Protein backbone atom coordinates (compact mmCIF):
# COMPACT_ATOMS: atom_id res chain seq x y z
CA UNK A 1 0.00 0.00 0.00
CA UNK A 2 1.22 3.44 -0.88
CA UNK A 3 1.49 5.91 1.94
CA UNK A 4 -0.39 9.04 0.91
CA UNK A 5 -1.67 12.10 2.71
CA UNK A 6 -4.91 10.14 3.24
CA UNK A 7 -3.12 7.35 5.09
CA UNK A 8 -1.47 9.95 7.29
CA UNK A 9 -4.84 11.55 7.97
CA UNK A 10 -6.27 8.23 9.16
CA UNK A 11 -3.20 7.47 11.29
CA UNK A 12 -3.41 10.99 12.70
CA UNK A 13 -7.08 10.65 13.59
CA UNK A 14 -6.50 7.26 15.20
CA UNK A 15 -3.61 8.70 17.22
CA UNK A 16 -5.80 11.63 18.22
CA UNK A 17 -8.50 9.18 19.34
CA UNK A 18 -6.03 7.21 21.45
CA UNK A 19 -4.40 10.34 22.93
CA UNK A 20 -7.67 12.14 23.67
CA UNK A 21 -8.85 9.23 25.79
CA UNK A 22 -5.48 8.35 27.37
CA UNK A 23 -4.50 11.90 28.26
CA UNK A 24 -7.94 12.83 29.47
CA UNK A 25 -8.71 15.47 26.83
CA UNK A 26 -12.13 13.89 26.50
CA UNK A 27 -13.27 12.53 29.82
CA UNK A 28 -16.30 10.39 29.30
CA UNK A 29 -17.14 6.75 29.93
CA UNK A 30 -18.46 6.76 26.36
CA UNK A 31 -15.08 7.61 24.92
CA UNK A 32 -12.69 4.69 25.41
CA UNK A 33 -9.27 4.67 23.78
CA UNK A 34 -8.80 2.77 20.53
CA UNK A 35 -6.50 0.30 22.27
CA UNK A 36 -9.20 -0.44 24.87
CA UNK A 37 -11.73 -1.00 22.09
CA UNK A 38 -9.44 -3.43 20.30
CA UNK A 39 -8.67 -5.23 23.56
CA UNK A 40 -12.39 -5.57 24.32
CA UNK A 41 -13.03 -6.87 20.83
CA UNK A 42 -10.22 -9.41 21.15
CA UNK A 43 -11.55 -10.55 24.54
CA UNK A 44 -15.09 -10.97 23.17
CA UNK A 45 -13.78 -12.96 20.24
CA UNK A 46 -11.72 -15.17 22.55
CA UNK A 47 -14.65 -16.15 24.78
CA UNK A 48 -16.44 -17.41 21.69
CA UNK A 49 -19.57 -15.43 22.37
CA UNK A 50 -19.03 -12.94 19.57
CA UNK A 51 -18.01 -15.51 16.93
CA UNK A 52 -21.18 -17.47 17.70
CA UNK A 53 -23.33 -14.38 17.33
CA UNK A 54 -21.60 -13.40 14.08
CA UNK A 55 -22.18 -16.88 12.74
CA UNK A 56 -25.87 -16.63 13.55
CA UNK A 57 -26.19 -13.22 11.95
CA UNK A 58 -24.36 -14.35 8.82
CA UNK A 59 -26.53 -17.43 8.52
CA UNK A 60 -29.73 -15.37 8.74
CA UNK A 61 -28.32 -12.91 6.23
CA UNK A 62 -27.38 -15.67 3.79
CA UNK A 63 -30.75 -17.41 4.12
CA UNK A 64 -32.61 -14.15 3.51
CA UNK A 65 -30.35 -13.27 0.61
CA UNK A 66 -30.95 -16.65 -1.02
CA UNK A 67 -34.73 -16.60 -0.54
CA UNK A 68 -35.24 -12.96 -1.50
CA UNK A 69 -32.76 -13.17 -4.37
CA UNK A 70 -34.41 -16.25 -5.86
CA UNK A 71 -37.84 -14.64 -5.58
CA UNK A 72 -36.49 -11.43 -7.13
CA UNK A 73 -34.89 -13.20 -10.10
CA UNK A 74 -37.98 -15.33 -10.78
CA UNK A 75 -40.35 -12.35 -10.49
CA UNK A 76 -38.06 -10.24 -12.67
CA UNK A 77 -37.95 -12.96 -15.32
CA UNK A 78 -41.72 -13.31 -15.23
CA UNK A 79 -42.32 -9.54 -15.42
CA UNK A 80 -39.93 -9.16 -18.35
CA UNK A 81 -40.92 -12.23 -20.36
CA UNK A 82 -44.68 -12.34 -19.67
CA UNK A 83 -45.87 -8.70 -19.82
CA UNK A 84 -49.27 -9.67 -18.44
CA UNK A 85 -47.73 -10.58 -15.05
CA UNK A 86 -46.10 -7.14 -14.86
CA UNK A 87 -49.41 -5.46 -15.64
CA UNK A 88 -51.20 -7.51 -13.00
CA UNK A 89 -48.71 -7.43 -10.15
CA UNK A 90 -46.49 -4.44 -10.95
CA UNK A 91 -48.70 -2.05 -9.02
CA UNK A 92 -48.68 -4.12 -5.82
CA UNK A 93 -44.88 -4.37 -5.98
CA UNK A 94 -44.52 -0.62 -6.50
CA UNK A 95 -46.81 0.06 -3.54
CA UNK A 96 -44.79 -2.19 -1.23
CA UNK A 97 -41.35 -1.02 -2.35
CA UNK A 98 -41.16 2.39 -0.60
CA UNK A 99 -42.09 1.06 2.86
CA UNK A 100 -38.99 1.55 5.04
CA UNK A 101 -37.84 -1.92 6.12
CA UNK A 102 -37.69 -1.40 9.87
CA UNK A 103 -41.43 -0.63 9.77
CA UNK A 104 -42.37 -4.10 8.56
CA UNK A 105 -40.61 -5.72 11.51
CA UNK A 106 -43.40 -5.14 14.09
CA UNK A 107 -46.14 -6.81 12.00
CA UNK A 108 -43.81 -9.66 11.06
CA UNK A 109 -43.07 -10.21 14.75
CA UNK A 110 -46.79 -10.85 15.25
CA UNK A 111 -46.86 -13.53 12.57
CA UNK A 112 -43.44 -15.10 12.87
CA UNK A 113 -42.19 -14.33 16.37
CA UNK A 114 -38.81 -12.94 17.33
CA UNK A 115 -36.47 -15.56 15.95
CA UNK A 116 -34.98 -16.76 12.68
CA UNK A 117 -38.12 -16.94 10.50
CA UNK A 118 -39.00 -13.29 11.13
CA UNK A 119 -35.47 -12.03 10.55
CA UNK A 120 -34.89 -14.11 7.43
CA UNK A 121 -38.19 -12.81 6.02
CA UNK A 122 -37.19 -9.20 6.69
CA UNK A 123 -33.88 -9.71 4.91
CA UNK A 124 -35.59 -11.50 2.02
CA UNK A 125 -38.06 -8.64 1.62
CA UNK A 126 -35.21 -6.13 1.48
CA UNK A 127 -33.23 -8.15 -1.02
CA UNK A 128 -36.21 -8.81 -3.27
CA UNK A 129 -36.62 -5.31 -4.68
CA UNK A 130 -33.13 -4.42 -5.95
CA UNK A 131 -32.73 -7.92 -7.43
CA UNK A 132 -36.14 -7.67 -9.12
CA UNK A 133 -35.37 -4.24 -10.62
CA UNK A 134 -31.97 -5.31 -11.92
CA UNK A 135 -33.24 -8.61 -13.32
CA UNK A 136 -36.02 -6.79 -15.12
CA UNK A 137 -33.64 -4.27 -16.64
CA UNK A 138 -31.08 -6.93 -17.46
CA UNK A 139 -33.59 -9.13 -19.27
CA UNK A 140 -35.04 -6.20 -21.16
CA UNK A 141 -31.56 -5.28 -22.37
CA UNK A 142 -30.84 -8.77 -23.80
CA UNK A 143 -30.20 -8.54 -27.53
CA UNK A 144 -33.38 -9.52 -29.37
CA UNK A 145 -31.23 -11.19 -32.02
CA UNK A 146 -29.90 -13.80 -29.62
CA UNK A 147 -33.44 -14.65 -28.51
CA UNK A 148 -34.61 -14.80 -32.11
CA UNK A 149 -31.73 -17.11 -32.91
CA UNK A 150 -32.77 -19.42 -30.11
CA UNK A 151 -36.25 -19.48 -31.54
CA UNK A 152 -34.90 -20.25 -35.01
CA UNK A 153 -33.05 -23.22 -33.60
CA UNK A 154 -36.30 -24.44 -32.09
CA UNK A 155 -35.31 -23.98 -28.44
CA UNK A 156 -38.39 -23.89 -26.22
CA UNK A 157 -39.33 -20.87 -24.11
CA UNK A 158 -38.23 -22.35 -20.77
CA UNK A 159 -34.84 -23.41 -22.07
CA UNK A 160 -34.49 -20.06 -23.84
CA UNK A 161 -35.07 -18.34 -20.50
CA UNK A 162 -32.60 -20.57 -18.68
CA UNK A 163 -29.80 -20.83 -21.24
CA UNK A 164 -29.96 -17.65 -23.34
CA UNK A 165 -31.72 -14.91 -21.41
CA UNK A 166 -30.54 -15.64 -17.88
CA UNK A 167 -26.81 -15.78 -18.74
CA UNK A 168 -27.09 -12.62 -20.86
CA UNK A 169 -28.79 -10.79 -18.01
CA UNK A 170 -26.35 -12.15 -15.41
CA UNK A 171 -24.11 -9.04 -15.14
CA UNK A 172 -27.14 -6.88 -14.33
CA UNK A 173 -28.53 -9.47 -11.91
CA UNK A 174 -25.21 -9.75 -10.09
CA UNK A 175 -25.01 -5.96 -9.81
CA UNK A 176 -28.42 -6.14 -8.10
CA UNK A 177 -27.11 -8.82 -5.74
CA UNK A 178 -24.10 -6.67 -4.87
CA UNK A 179 -26.41 -3.85 -3.77
CA UNK A 180 -28.63 -6.36 -1.99
CA UNK A 181 -25.69 -7.91 -0.11
CA UNK A 182 -24.80 -4.61 1.57
CA UNK A 183 -28.45 -3.99 2.43
CA UNK A 184 -28.85 -7.54 3.73
CA UNK A 185 -26.12 -7.12 6.36
CA UNK A 186 -27.54 -3.78 7.47
CA UNK A 187 -31.07 -5.11 7.72
CA UNK A 188 -30.02 -8.26 9.58
CA UNK A 189 -28.41 -6.05 12.19
CA UNK A 190 -31.44 -3.73 12.28
CA UNK A 191 -33.85 -6.61 12.81
CA UNK A 192 -31.66 -7.99 15.58
CA UNK A 193 -31.51 -4.57 17.20
CA UNK A 194 -35.27 -4.14 17.24
CA UNK A 195 -36.45 -7.63 18.15
CA UNK A 196 -35.13 -10.65 19.97
CA UNK A 197 -31.87 -11.51 21.65
CA UNK A 198 -29.99 -13.09 18.78
CA UNK A 199 -27.01 -12.02 16.84
CA UNK A 200 -24.63 -9.16 16.58
CA UNK A 201 -27.30 -6.42 16.43
CA UNK A 202 -28.79 -7.45 19.74
CA UNK A 203 -25.30 -7.58 21.27
CA UNK A 204 -24.73 -4.01 20.15
CA UNK A 205 -27.87 -2.74 21.89
CA UNK A 206 -27.08 -4.88 24.94
CA UNK A 207 -23.66 -3.27 25.27
CA UNK A 208 -25.20 0.17 24.83
CA UNK A 209 -27.65 -0.42 27.68
CA UNK A 210 -24.91 -1.92 29.84
CA UNK A 211 -22.80 1.17 29.20
CA UNK A 212 -19.91 -0.97 27.98
CA UNK A 213 -18.62 1.43 25.37
CA UNK A 214 -15.40 -0.44 24.39
CA UNK A 215 -17.36 -3.58 23.53
CA UNK A 216 -19.89 -1.52 21.60
CA UNK A 217 -17.29 0.20 19.44
CA UNK A 218 -15.50 -3.09 18.96
CA UNK A 219 -18.65 -4.59 17.47
CA UNK A 220 -19.04 -1.63 15.12
CA UNK A 221 -15.45 -2.00 13.89
CA UNK A 222 -16.11 -5.67 13.38
CA UNK A 223 -19.27 -4.94 11.39
CA UNK A 224 -17.38 -2.50 9.16
CA UNK A 225 -14.72 -5.12 8.50
CA UNK A 226 -17.42 -7.70 7.82
CA UNK A 227 -19.22 -5.42 5.36
CA UNK A 228 -15.97 -4.62 3.59
CA UNK A 229 -14.91 -8.27 3.36
CA UNK A 230 -18.31 -9.41 2.10
CA UNK A 231 -18.28 -6.76 -0.62
CA UNK A 232 -14.73 -7.63 -1.69
CA UNK A 233 -15.53 -11.33 -1.68
CA UNK A 234 -18.61 -10.78 -3.79
CA UNK A 235 -16.75 -8.64 -6.32
CA UNK A 236 -14.13 -11.38 -6.66
CA UNK A 237 -16.85 -13.99 -7.15
CA UNK A 238 -18.58 -11.75 -9.67
CA UNK A 239 -15.39 -11.45 -11.71
CA UNK A 240 -15.09 -15.22 -11.88
CA UNK A 241 -18.75 -15.80 -12.74
CA UNK A 242 -18.93 -13.30 -15.58
CA UNK A 243 -15.36 -13.27 -16.78
CA UNK A 244 -16.61 -13.28 -20.38
CA UNK A 245 -18.43 -10.02 -19.73
CA UNK A 246 -15.35 -8.26 -18.42
CA UNK A 247 -13.39 -9.66 -21.37
CA UNK A 248 -15.96 -8.21 -23.79
CA UNK A 249 -15.88 -4.85 -22.03
CA UNK A 250 -12.09 -4.80 -22.34
CA UNK A 251 -12.28 -5.65 -26.03
CA UNK A 252 -14.78 -2.87 -26.65
CA UNK A 253 -12.62 -0.32 -24.88
Amino acid at each position, binding site marked *: MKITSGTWLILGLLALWEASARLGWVESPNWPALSQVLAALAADMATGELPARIGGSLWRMAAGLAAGGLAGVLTGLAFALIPLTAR*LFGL*VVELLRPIPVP*AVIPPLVLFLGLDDPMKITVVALTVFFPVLTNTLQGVQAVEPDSIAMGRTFGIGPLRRAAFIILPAALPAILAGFRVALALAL*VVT*VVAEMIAGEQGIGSYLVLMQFAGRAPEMYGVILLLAALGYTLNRGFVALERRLIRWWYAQARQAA
Partner: protein
Amino acid sequence: MRVERLLSPLPGLLVLAALLLGLEWAVDAGLIRRALMPAPSTIALRLWDLLEAGDVWAPMMQTLRLVFTGFAIGSAIGIAAGLAMGWWPAVFRLLEPLVELIRPIPKSALVPPLMLFLGIGFTMKVTSVALVVTFPVLVNTLQGVRGVDRVMLDAARTHGWPARHTLLHLVLPAALPLVLAGMRISLGLAMVLAVLSEMLAGEGGLGFLILDMQRSFRVRDMYAWLVILAVLGLALNWLFVLAERRALHWQRR
Protein backbone atom coordinates in the same frame (compact mmCIF):
# COMPACT_ATOMS: atom_id res chain seq x y z
CA MET B 1 -54.42 6.03 -27.03
CA ARG B 2 -55.87 8.20 -24.29
CA VAL B 3 -58.33 5.54 -23.19
CA GLU B 4 -55.57 2.96 -23.25
CA ARG B 5 -53.42 5.08 -20.95
CA LEU B 6 -56.32 5.55 -18.59
CA LEU B 7 -56.99 1.82 -18.58
CA SER B 8 -53.38 0.68 -18.22
CA PRO B 9 -53.29 0.71 -14.39
CA LEU B 10 -56.64 -1.08 -14.33
CA PRO B 11 -55.36 -4.69 -14.17
CA GLY B 12 -53.03 -3.71 -11.33
CA LEU B 13 -55.84 -2.02 -9.43
CA LEU B 14 -58.06 -5.06 -9.92
CA VAL B 15 -55.39 -7.35 -8.49
CA LEU B 16 -54.94 -4.99 -5.53
CA ALA B 17 -58.70 -4.95 -4.92
CA ALA B 18 -58.85 -8.73 -5.21
CA LEU B 19 -56.03 -9.12 -2.69
CA LEU B 20 -57.74 -6.80 -0.20
CA LEU B 21 -61.08 -8.55 -0.65
CA GLY B 22 -59.41 -11.94 -0.29
CA LEU B 23 -57.77 -10.79 2.93
CA GLU B 24 -61.07 -9.43 4.20
CA TRP B 25 -62.74 -12.74 3.48
CA ALA B 26 -59.92 -14.79 5.00
CA VAL B 27 -60.12 -12.78 8.24
CA ASP B 28 -63.91 -13.03 8.31
CA ALA B 29 -63.78 -16.76 7.75
CA GLY B 30 -61.29 -17.09 10.61
CA LEU B 31 -58.43 -18.31 8.42
CA ILE B 32 -56.22 -15.50 9.73
CA ARG B 33 -56.34 -14.61 13.40
CA ARG B 34 -57.79 -11.18 13.96
CA ALA B 35 -55.16 -10.47 16.61
CA LEU B 36 -52.48 -10.73 13.93
CA MET B 37 -54.19 -9.19 10.96
CA PRO B 38 -57.47 -7.34 11.39
CA ALA B 39 -59.76 -7.07 8.35
CA PRO B 40 -58.62 -4.37 5.88
CA SER B 41 -61.99 -2.62 6.26
CA THR B 42 -61.48 -2.13 10.01
CA ILE B 43 -57.96 -0.81 9.38
CA ALA B 44 -59.43 1.62 6.86
CA LEU B 45 -61.99 2.76 9.45
CA ARG B 46 -59.27 3.29 12.03
CA LEU B 47 -57.29 5.25 9.44
CA TRP B 48 -60.35 7.39 8.79
CA ASP B 49 -60.73 8.07 12.53
CA LEU B 50 -57.09 9.14 12.76
CA LEU B 51 -57.47 11.44 9.77
CA GLU B 52 -60.72 12.93 10.96
CA ALA B 53 -59.49 13.59 14.48
CA GLY B 54 -56.35 15.16 13.00
CA ASP B 55 -54.09 12.83 15.02
CA VAL B 56 -52.11 11.97 11.94
CA TRP B 57 -50.35 15.25 11.44
CA ALA B 58 -48.14 15.64 14.52
CA PRO B 59 -46.29 12.29 14.22
CA MET B 60 -46.15 12.59 10.44
CA MET B 61 -44.66 16.06 10.61
CA GLN B 62 -42.15 14.89 13.20
CA THR B 63 -40.92 12.13 10.90
CA LEU B 64 -41.02 14.36 7.82
CA ARG B 65 -39.00 17.09 9.52
CA LEU B 66 -36.43 14.49 10.53
CA VAL B 67 -36.17 13.02 7.02
CA PHE B 68 -35.98 16.42 5.34
CA THR B 69 -33.41 17.95 7.68
CA GLY B 70 -31.17 14.90 7.67
CA PHE B 71 -31.52 14.50 3.92
CA ALA B 72 -30.65 18.16 3.29
CA ILE B 73 -27.60 18.13 5.58
CA GLY B 74 -26.32 14.79 4.29
CA SER B 75 -26.82 15.78 0.66
CA ALA B 76 -25.07 19.11 1.14
CA ILE B 77 -22.05 17.45 2.76
CA GLY B 78 -22.01 14.68 0.16
CA ILE B 79 -22.16 17.07 -2.78
CA ALA B 80 -19.58 19.47 -1.34
CA ALA B 81 -17.14 16.70 -0.46
CA GLY B 82 -17.73 14.90 -3.77
CA LEU B 83 -17.11 18.06 -5.78
CA ALA B 84 -13.97 18.90 -3.83
CA MET B 85 -12.61 15.35 -4.11
CA GLY B 86 -13.38 15.18 -7.80
CA TRP B 87 -11.93 18.60 -8.55
CA TRP B 88 -8.73 18.81 -6.48
CA PRO B 89 -6.55 15.67 -6.60
CA ALA B 90 -4.93 16.70 -3.32
CA VAL B 91 -8.31 16.63 -1.55
CA PHE B 92 -9.04 13.26 -3.12
CA ARG B 93 -5.75 11.80 -1.87
CA LEU B 94 -6.43 13.22 1.58
CA LEU B 95 -10.01 12.07 2.05
CA GLU B 96 -10.41 8.96 -0.12
CA PRO B 97 -8.96 6.43 2.35
CA LEU B 98 -11.05 7.90 5.17
CA VAL B 99 -14.23 7.71 3.07
CA GLU B 100 -13.48 4.10 2.12
CA LEU B 101 -12.94 3.32 5.81
CA ILE B 102 -16.22 4.83 7.04
CA ARG B 103 -18.39 3.83 4.09
CA PRO B 104 -18.72 0.10 4.87
CA ILE B 105 -19.82 0.75 8.48
CA PRO B 106 -23.54 -0.08 8.59
CA LYS B 107 -24.90 3.32 9.61
CA SER B 108 -27.73 1.68 11.53
CA ALA B 109 -25.12 0.29 13.93
CA LEU B 110 -24.04 3.83 14.72
CA VAL B 111 -27.39 4.69 16.31
CA PRO B 112 -26.47 3.20 19.74
CA PRO B 113 -23.21 5.19 20.14
CA LEU B 114 -24.93 8.31 18.82
CA MET B 115 -27.53 7.84 21.53
CA LEU B 116 -24.77 7.78 24.14
CA PHE B 117 -23.33 11.06 22.93
CA LEU B 118 -26.35 12.98 21.72
CA GLY B 119 -29.17 11.55 23.78
CA ILE B 120 -32.46 10.46 22.27
CA GLY B 121 -33.58 13.78 20.84
CA PHE B 122 -33.77 15.32 17.41
CA THR B 123 -30.00 15.93 17.12
CA MET B 124 -29.19 12.23 17.41
CA LYS B 125 -31.80 11.24 14.84
CA VAL B 126 -30.83 13.94 12.35
CA THR B 127 -27.17 12.97 12.68
CA SER B 128 -27.92 9.32 11.95
CA VAL B 129 -30.07 10.22 8.92
CA ALA B 130 -27.46 12.68 7.61
CA LEU B 131 -24.72 10.06 8.00
CA VAL B 132 -26.50 7.47 5.91
CA VAL B 133 -27.42 10.05 3.25
CA THR B 134 -23.90 11.46 2.84
CA PHE B 135 -22.05 8.52 1.35
CA PRO B 136 -24.15 7.50 -1.68
CA VAL B 137 -24.40 11.19 -2.63
CA LEU B 138 -20.66 11.68 -2.17
CA VAL B 139 -19.68 8.64 -4.24
CA ASN B 140 -22.09 9.53 -7.05
CA THR B 141 -21.02 13.19 -7.11
CA LEU B 142 -17.41 12.11 -7.32
CA GLN B 143 -18.19 9.84 -10.27
CA GLY B 144 -20.19 12.59 -11.92
CA VAL B 145 -17.37 15.10 -11.61
CA ARG B 146 -14.89 12.62 -13.02
CA GLY B 147 -17.16 12.00 -16.00
CA VAL B 148 -17.25 15.64 -17.08
CA ASP B 149 -16.20 16.08 -20.70
CA ARG B 150 -12.50 17.06 -20.91
CA VAL B 151 -13.16 19.19 -23.99
CA MET B 152 -15.73 21.28 -22.11
CA LEU B 153 -13.26 21.83 -19.25
CA ASP B 154 -10.59 22.91 -21.73
CA ALA B 155 -13.07 25.24 -23.36
CA ALA B 156 -13.88 26.81 -20.02
CA ARG B 157 -10.20 27.32 -19.35
CA THR B 158 -9.68 28.83 -22.79
CA HIS B 159 -12.43 31.32 -22.02
CA GLY B 160 -10.66 32.21 -18.83
CA TRP B 161 -13.41 31.04 -16.47
CA PRO B 162 -12.33 31.21 -12.83
CA ALA B 163 -12.33 27.84 -11.04
CA ARG B 164 -15.39 28.65 -8.96
CA HIS B 165 -17.39 29.63 -12.00
CA THR B 166 -16.38 26.41 -13.80
CA LEU B 167 -17.34 24.33 -10.78
CA LEU B 168 -20.78 25.89 -10.32
CA HIS B 169 -21.77 26.40 -13.95
CA LEU B 170 -20.10 23.54 -15.77
CA VAL B 171 -19.05 20.72 -13.45
CA LEU B 172 -22.07 20.68 -11.15
CA PRO B 173 -24.69 20.70 -13.94
CA ALA B 174 -22.77 18.05 -15.87
CA ALA B 175 -22.58 15.85 -12.78
CA LEU B 176 -26.22 16.49 -11.84
CA PRO B 177 -27.76 13.30 -13.28
CA LEU B 178 -25.45 11.14 -11.17
CA VAL B 179 -25.78 13.42 -8.12
CA LEU B 180 -29.56 13.11 -8.27
CA ALA B 181 -29.36 9.34 -8.76
CA GLY B 182 -27.31 9.17 -5.57
CA MET B 183 -29.82 11.37 -3.77
CA ARG B 184 -32.68 9.12 -4.87
CA ILE B 185 -30.96 6.12 -3.27
CA SER B 186 -30.24 8.20 -0.18
CA LEU B 187 -33.85 9.28 0.20
CA GLY B 188 -34.93 5.67 0.73
CA LEU B 189 -32.08 5.14 3.19
CA ALA B 190 -33.02 8.35 5.01
CA MET B 191 -36.51 6.94 5.60
CA VAL B 192 -35.01 3.69 6.90
CA LEU B 193 -32.71 5.43 9.38
CA ALA B 194 -35.43 7.87 10.45
CA VAL B 195 -37.82 5.04 11.28
CA LEU B 196 -35.10 2.98 12.96
CA SER B 197 -33.83 5.82 15.16
CA GLU B 198 -37.40 6.66 16.14
CA MET B 199 -37.93 3.03 17.11
CA LEU B 200 -34.75 2.86 19.17
CA ALA B 201 -35.09 6.28 20.79
CA GLY B 202 -38.80 5.84 21.55
CA GLU B 203 -39.75 9.46 21.50
CA GLY B 204 -42.54 9.91 18.99
CA GLY B 205 -42.72 9.83 15.21
CA LEU B 206 -44.16 7.19 12.90
CA GLY B 207 -41.46 4.62 13.59
CA PHE B 208 -42.00 4.85 17.33
CA LEU B 209 -45.77 4.60 16.95
CA ILE B 210 -45.65 1.47 14.80
CA LEU B 211 -43.42 -0.34 17.29
CA ASP B 212 -45.30 0.99 20.31
CA MET B 213 -48.70 -0.07 18.96
CA GLN B 214 -47.37 -3.56 18.32
CA ARG B 215 -45.95 -3.82 21.83
CA SER B 216 -49.25 -2.71 23.34
CA PHE B 217 -51.17 -5.10 21.05
CA ARG B 218 -53.13 -2.34 19.35
CA VAL B 219 -52.76 -4.11 16.07
CA ARG B 220 -55.31 -2.10 14.13
CA ASP B 221 -53.50 1.12 15.01
CA MET B 222 -50.19 -0.44 14.06
CA TYR B 223 -51.41 -1.26 10.56
CA ALA B 224 -53.05 2.15 10.19
CA TRP B 225 -49.77 3.92 11.01
CA LEU B 226 -47.91 1.53 8.71
CA VAL B 227 -50.23 2.53 5.85
CA ILE B 228 -49.57 6.19 6.64
CA LEU B 229 -45.83 5.60 6.56
CA ALA B 230 -46.10 3.69 3.28
CA VAL B 231 -48.10 6.52 1.70
CA LEU B 232 -45.52 9.00 2.94
CA GLY B 233 -42.68 6.96 1.43
CA LEU B 234 -44.55 6.66 -1.84
CA ALA B 235 -45.30 10.40 -1.95
CA LEU B 236 -41.70 11.40 -1.17
CA ASN B 237 -40.37 9.08 -3.84
CA TRP B 238 -42.84 10.37 -6.37
CA LEU B 239 -42.06 14.00 -5.57
CA PHE B 240 -38.36 13.35 -5.91
CA VAL B 241 -38.72 11.66 -9.29
CA LEU B 242 -40.84 14.60 -10.43
CA ALA B 243 -38.25 17.12 -9.23
CA GLU B 244 -35.48 15.05 -10.82
CA ARG B 245 -37.28 15.15 -14.17
CA ARG B 246 -37.67 18.90 -13.99
CA ALA B 247 -34.05 19.42 -13.04
CA LEU B 248 -32.87 17.19 -15.89
CA HIS B 249 -35.32 18.36 -18.54
CA TRP B 250 -32.42 19.34 -20.79
CA GLN B 251 -31.11 15.79 -20.73
CA ARG B 252 -33.88 13.86 -22.46
CA ARG B 253 -34.99 15.71 -25.50
